[in-house]
C-alpha cells in the first residue's frame, strides 16, 4: 500500500456523500437565524417606511399624528366602555348603530383602513363556524385551529408583503384580531353578537394601528393582549342579600314602613309567603392591554404595560316576579410586571414560562339597582362606589408563541392567577374566587 494507493483511495472517496442527519438544517437554521429575530421582531422595513413618512411631512404632521393618537385612544376607551354596556343590554340595534359610528370614524382616521375592513369582515364571518364546533376546546385544540387559520391567512399576506410594507402592519392586526374574536366567541358565545365582534375588532385594529405608529426603534417589544379567565362564578343562597354578601337586616323595615310606595317594602311584602333566594353572578372579566417587552439576554425578558379590566357582578334577590336586581361594574386600570423565561425553541415555536405581578386600581365603580315589583320596575337607583380599592395579584403562566413571519408572533398563555384581598366591601369575582385559571392571547412584535 503505497502513497499512490492512498491517493487513489482519496480521489475515489472525494465526492462520496452520506445522508445528512435528519432535521440538521432545521436545527442550524434555528440556531443561526432564529436568535437574531428574537432580538428584533419589528419589521425593519416598516420602521424605515415610517421614518420616511415622519421626515417628509415634518414636525407639524407629527403633532397632528399625536393628537390623532390621543383621539383614537379616547375613542377606543369610549368604545370599550360602551361595548361593556352593550353586553348587559344585549341590544343589537344599538350595536349596529355604534358600528356605523365606528365605520365613519375609522374612515376619517385612515382611508387605508377601509381596505382592510373588508378583509376583516371576511375573517369575522368565518369564525362562528370554528367557534360553534369547538366550544369546549383544550389548548392543544386551539393551537391546531390557530395553525390552520394561519395557513389561510398567510397566503394573501405573502403576496401582500412585497407590494406594500405599510399595509403589512395593518394586515397583521387583522390576523390577531380574528383570533381574539375566536377566543371571545368561545368563552362567551351567547353574549357577544356578530356585530359586536366586528366592532371589537375595529376598535382593536385602530388600537393596533396606533401601535404601529408609536413604536420606537429601541430594543423594546410591543405587544397587545386580550384575555379572560376561564370561569365565571355564581352563588346562590336563601334569603335576601346585598352585594357585599351580607344578608339584609329585614325585620325592622318590614314592620316600620307599612306603605306600598316603598318598593323595597313592596317587594318584601309580596314575597312574604314565597321562597326567596339571592343569586350573585360574576360575569367573566374582560381584559385588554398594551405591553412593552424587552429581552434580557437570550432566554430572559421583562415586560410591563397597561391593562384595562372590567368586572361585572349581577345580584338578583327575591322571588320570580318581585325582586331587587343590582348590577355592579368595576373598571380597573392595571400595571403588570412580567418576567419571561424561554424554555424551548423549536422551529417557529417558542415555549416559555412567565411570572409576574399586577397592580390594579379601580378607576370607576358603580351599582345600578332596580326594584321590581310584579315584573315592573318600580324604582331605579344608581350608586357610585367611592372606595376605589387597589387590587394586587400575582400570576404565572406557560406560553407558546408561534412566529407567523420573521418578527411577528402570536401567543397563547394559559396560566393561573391569585388575587389578594383588597380590604374593600366591593364584591368581585376576584374576592369570590381569588384563585383562577386564565388564558391570554396576544400579538407580539420585537424591535431591534
Amino acid at each position, binding site marked *: 500500500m503505497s502513497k499512490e494507493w492512498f491517493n*487513489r483511495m482519496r480521489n475515489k472517496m472525494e465526492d462520496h456523500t452520506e445522508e445528512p442527519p435528519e432535521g*440538521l*438544517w432545521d436545527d442550524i*437554521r434555528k440556531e*443561526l437565524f432564529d436568535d437574531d429575530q428574537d432580538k428584533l421582531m419589528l419589521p425593519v422595513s416598516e420602521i424605515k417606511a415610517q421614518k420616511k413618512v415622519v421626515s417628509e411631512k415634518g414636525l407639524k404632521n407629527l403633532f397632528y399624528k399625536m393628537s390623532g393618537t390621543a383621539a383614537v385612544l379616547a375613542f377606543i376607551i369610549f368604545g370599550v366602555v360602551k361595548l361593556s354596556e352593550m353586553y348587559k343590554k344585549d341590544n343589537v340595534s344599538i350595536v349596529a348603530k355604534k358600528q356605523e359610528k365606528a365605520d365613519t370614524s375609522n374612515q376619517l382616521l385612515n382611508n387605508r383602513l377601509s381596505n382592510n375592513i373588508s378583509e376583516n369582515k371576511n375573517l369575522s364571518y368565518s369564525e362562528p363556524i370554528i367557534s360553534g364546533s369547538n366550544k369546549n376546546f383544550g389548548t392543544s385544540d386551539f393551537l391546531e385551529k390557530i395553525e390552520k387559520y394561519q395557513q389561510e391567512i398567510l397566503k394573501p399576506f405573502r403576496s401582500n408583503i412585497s407590494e406594500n410594507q405599510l399595509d403589512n402592519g395593518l394586515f397583521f392586526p387583522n390576523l390577531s384580531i380574528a383570533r381574539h374574536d375566536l377566543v371571545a366567541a368561545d368563552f362567551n358565545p351567547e353574549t357577544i353578537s356578530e356585530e359586536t365582534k366586528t366592532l371589537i375588532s375595529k376598535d382593536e385594529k385602530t388600537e393596533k394601528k396606533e401601535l404601529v405608529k408609536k413604536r420606537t426603534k429601541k430594543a423594546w417589544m410591543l405587544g397587545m393582549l386580550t384575555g379572560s379567565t376561564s370561569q365565571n362564578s355564581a352563588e346562590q343562597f336563601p334569603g335576601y342579600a346585598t352585594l357585599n354578601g351580607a344578608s339584609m337586616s329585614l325585620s325592622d323595615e318590614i314592620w316600620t314602613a307599612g306603605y306600598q310606595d316603598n318598593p323595597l317594602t313592596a317587594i318584601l311584602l309580596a314575597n312574604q309567603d314565597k321562597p326567596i333566594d339571592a343569586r350573585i353572578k360574576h360575569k367573566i372579566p374582560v381584559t385588554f392591554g398594551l405591553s412593552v417587552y424587552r429581552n434580557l439576554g437570550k432566554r430572559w425578558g421583562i415586560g410591563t404595560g397597561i391593562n384595562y379590566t372590567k368586572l361585572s357582578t349581577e345580584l338578583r334577590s327575591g322571588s320570580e316576579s318581585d325582586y331587587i336586581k343590582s348590577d355592579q361594574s368595576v373598571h380597573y386600570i392595571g400595571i403588570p410586571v412580567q418576567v419571561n423565561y424561554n424554555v424551548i425553541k423549536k422551529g417557529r415555536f417558542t415555549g416559555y414560562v412567565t411570572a409576574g405581578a399586577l397592580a390594579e386600581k379601580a378607576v370607576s365603580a358603580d351599582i345600578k339597582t332596580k326594584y321590581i315589583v310584579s315584573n315592573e320596575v318600580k324604582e331605579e337607583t344608581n350608586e357610585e362606589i367611592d372606595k376605589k380599592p387597589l387590587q394586587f395579584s400575582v400570576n404565572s403562566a406557560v406560553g407558546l408563541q408561534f412566529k407567523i413571519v420573521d418578527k411577528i408572533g402570536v401567543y397563547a398563555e394559559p396560566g393561573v392567577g391569585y388575587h389578594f384581598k383588597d380590604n374593600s366591601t366591593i364584591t368581585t369575582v376576584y374576592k369570590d374566587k381569588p384563585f383562577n385559571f386564565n388564558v391570554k392571547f396576544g400579538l407580539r412584535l420585537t424591535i431591534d
Partner: protein
Amino acid sequence: MELNKEQILIDRLLLKEEAAWKELFEVYSGNLTYVCSRYILDKDNVHDVLQNSFIKMFRSIESFQYRGNGSLRAWMSRIVVNESLTFLKQNSDFKNFVDDSELPDMTMDEEPDLQQIPEAVIMEMIRSLPEGYRTVFNLFVFEEKSHKEIAEVLGIAENSSASQFHRARVTLAQKIKEYKRLKIAQYE
C-alpha cells in the same frame, strides 16, 4: 472580472442571507456528512458536530478567502474535521488507543484494486476500524497530514501515530482482501 456561481454564493453568505446558507447546506451537507462520519460513528454525534461546524462557518465566513473552485468545500471540510477532532478529544483519550494486540503477519506487497469496491463498502471498512486507528488513518490519508502533525493535533507521540496508522492499514488491507475473497466466492 466575471464572478462565478460559487463566488456569488459566497457574497450572499457574507450577507448572512438565510437562503444562501440553506443553499450551501443543500449542496455540501451530503459530502460533509461523509467527512464527519469517517471520524464519528454515532449518528446523533454526527448531527451535533455538523451543527457546530455550520455555526462556526457562519461566524467565520468573513475570514474565508476564495482561492478558486473547490476552496469553499476544502474550507468547510477543514472546519468539519476540526470539529470532529475536538469532539473526539472531548470524548475519548487518544493516549489510551495504543493497542498492543498481535497484528497478523501480512505483507504489504499487493495493492488491492479499489475500482471494484463500492464507495459505501470502503466507507464501512473505514468506519469499522477502532477509533484510534481510524482517526489517524483519516488524517493521514484524507487530510494528508504527516505523522508529526497528527501527533500534535491528537496530543500523542509521533511514533504512536505511525504505529496506529500501520495497524489501521493492515486491518484495512485485510478487510479488502476478505471482501474480494467473498466477492470471488459469490461468482464461482
